[in-house]
């Protein structure tokens, strides 16, 4: 009797040898019923070194296993003495890194929650060598503009998106609201709406119609889900996102004093079109937002009329001085140590929970 690979997972995780084989099984498996999930993260280290390090270290008494050839099958092993009656699903994914950009792709057919336990564990071990880069709304638009030039605007549709925006009601106890829209619109219309509402994206689900249908979802944190036509999704959307991730990593990289020329930091700022900080209550709101950043502590030296505080990120020992000295910008001055992962995490937290602004090089204008 021949053994059949009778589940999509069995088929997916049986791909061996090379990326073509993986894409072949991915296209067979990928469907609305069996979406493929994953994420992108950035690292300058060779993937082999990262995997060796991963195998040598444990998180919560669980260890990692990884195959030796790319795409590498990484498994987060079950605890040996697990007493659960049902066998726990072992989180698994494929990892591979292209030769030309410092980005690693992670891909699985398991549920998002199972995958996130694996990806979170990998981050905890591999930090600060890897960076999770977050996308801004303008970068989503950049990727879709690029994509539509190959297929035409009318073929590229937005089917769902989650966006946040400020609550204008002064009596509200919440400052930011989250809205999920199920729709079917062309993407310029959606981005116009976002601009008018001063909203910013958390996730977006796109659909490409025509002779090569494709659909999938991209998250702000560079996570993705593909529901249809993974090879096209990868070639069109994911590779563009990877380019943006690599570029943003370069932007955030080497800004601390240890890396800068003459041991000077390279500050960045988050700027807004409107005078957000003309209302001094916004200082208090920003303090609350920054204080809510997980695994970090924020010491406020001065809160009003200007803000000066120091953030220490316990995930990798990065630290920053944060200033509000103008009505339209937040200044972030990296201190002795500041990794690209930590800086991206901080900027995203502010853009996602306070208000999305333009993150750029500080020029003192």
């Amino acid at each position: 009797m021949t053994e059949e690979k009778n589940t999509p997972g069995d088929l997916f995780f049986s791909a061996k040898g090379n990326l073509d084989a993986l894409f072949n099984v991915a296209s067979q498996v990928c469907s609305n019923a069996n979406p493929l999930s994953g994420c992108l993260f950035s690292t300058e280290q060779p993937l082999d070194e990262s995997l060796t390090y991963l195998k040598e270290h444990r998180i919560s008494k669980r260890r990692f296993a990884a195959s030796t050839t790319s795409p590498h099958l990484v498994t987060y092993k079950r605890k040996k003495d697990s007493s659960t009656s049902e066998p726990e699903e072992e989180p698994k994914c494929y990892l591979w890194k292209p030769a030309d950009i410092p980005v690693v792709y992670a891909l699985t057919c398991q549920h998002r929650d199972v995958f996130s336990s694996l990806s979170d564990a990998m981050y905890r071990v591999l930090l600060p060598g890897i960076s999770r880069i977050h996308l801004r709304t303008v970068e989503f638009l950049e990727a879709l503009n690029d994509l539509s030039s190959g297929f035409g605007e009318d073929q590229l549709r937005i089917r769902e998106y989650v966006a946040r925006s400020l609550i204008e009601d002064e009596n509200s106890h919440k400052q930011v609201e989250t809205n999920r829209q199920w729709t079917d619109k062309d993407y310029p219309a959606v981005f116009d709406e976002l601009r008018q509402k001063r909203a910013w994206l958390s996730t977006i689900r796109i659909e490409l119609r025509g002779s090569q249908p494709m659909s999938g979802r991209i998250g702000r944190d560079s996570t993705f889900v593909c529901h249809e036509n993974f090879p096209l999704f990868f070639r069109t959307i994911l590779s563009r996102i990877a380019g943006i991730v690599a570029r943003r990593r370069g932007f955030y990289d080497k800004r601390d004093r240890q890396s800068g020329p003459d041991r000077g930091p390279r500050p960045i700022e988050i700027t807004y079109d409107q005078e957000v900080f003309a209302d001094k209550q916004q200082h208090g709101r920003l303090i609350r937002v920054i204080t809510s950043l997980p695994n970090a502590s924020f010491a406020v030296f001065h809160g009003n009329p200007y803000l000066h505080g120091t953030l220490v990120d316990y995930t990798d020992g990065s630290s920053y001085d944060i200033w509000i000295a103008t009505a339209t910008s937040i200044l972030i001055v990296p201190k002795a140590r500041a990794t690209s992962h930590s800086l991206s995490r901080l900027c995203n937290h502010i853009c996602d929970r306070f208000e999305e602004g333009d993150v750029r090089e500080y020029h003192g204008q």
Partner: protein
Amino acid sequence: MTVEDIIRRLRKDCDDYCDTVLALKAFAHEMLWDDGTGSVDCPAFFGRSMATSSANRISPDNTVTPDLIVQPKPQYGIVAEAKIALSGDPKKRTRKLQALQKYDDDLTGWKTADEKMKLHDVVLLCHNFHGTEVCDQLRDLQGKAEITFDRKFAVVSFIRGQQTETWMSLALEMGDLSDTAKKEKLRKRLQIRLDHIAANPKFASVELYDHPPPLPMLMHFIEQTVVNDLDPSELLRHRQRQPVLKTYSIDDMRDRLATSFALPQDKSRTPKIPKRASVKEALEAFVALGWAQRASEPKGYYLYTVKKRHGNLFERFITFVAKQQFEARQAEEEAAKKEQDPNAMVQKRLFAP
């Protein structure tokens, strides 16, 4: 005085200290600024050990540590001293002002080939609130020939101001500077945006000057320094919620603080900022707080526990130090009362050996 009063005083002390550092940075920022070309790449030191000559009127053949040395040109420098508030006692104030004359000397220790400077000015930086009072007293002392300067001497006041932007204002209150263009700018009152000062890559990291920082601030700097110091394996243990122990001697911690929060300079001229006694006091405070312990071996070392801490640590340090000071004050008052208690005195006399 209640604990809340002490908390308010500590917050003010920390604010004053930060303002003074900002003022020194603002002054350095301006002195190293060319309106045509922008920031000039010239030396600036926030504290530098310099040797006085035998002709020094106040401190001959000795070492002095001015708060700021700026060298905008190869043969021109400025020595600046910051005083956010001079003493309320007129005699003490007079002595502090007269002590500025120690910088009116052929000092050795400039960042030049022969460590000498052909021409330098002496500047007193003081808070705008005290500017008039300080200038009146200086004029009085100069009138009585109780203070003289052979070199150009100026008083520059500073104050933080705010409209839609926050800036540091510098103003020439009295005296003279060799750079007439800078003098004129200061005479008209100069405003420098706070973010320009904070982001100046040359001295963005400077948070200490040659005056002991308030204890809560130094505790905060130590916590930062220790976390920055974790290596990758320690960071991994930390992320796995395992406490990490770091060992430091007082001198070790002092050197790390100087590296992190003061400007690097040549070893022979690096002043002891912060002072060893201040660092020891801060480490002992961490022992009292339960975040560190004294090592049994080797002596003089401390084991600092790095854990995930939550909330505004700076406020925690302020509250802790305030409570410690309040309890110490109460203990002193109790002891003083017992000394004065007639019954206690009788008991003491009756039962004295």
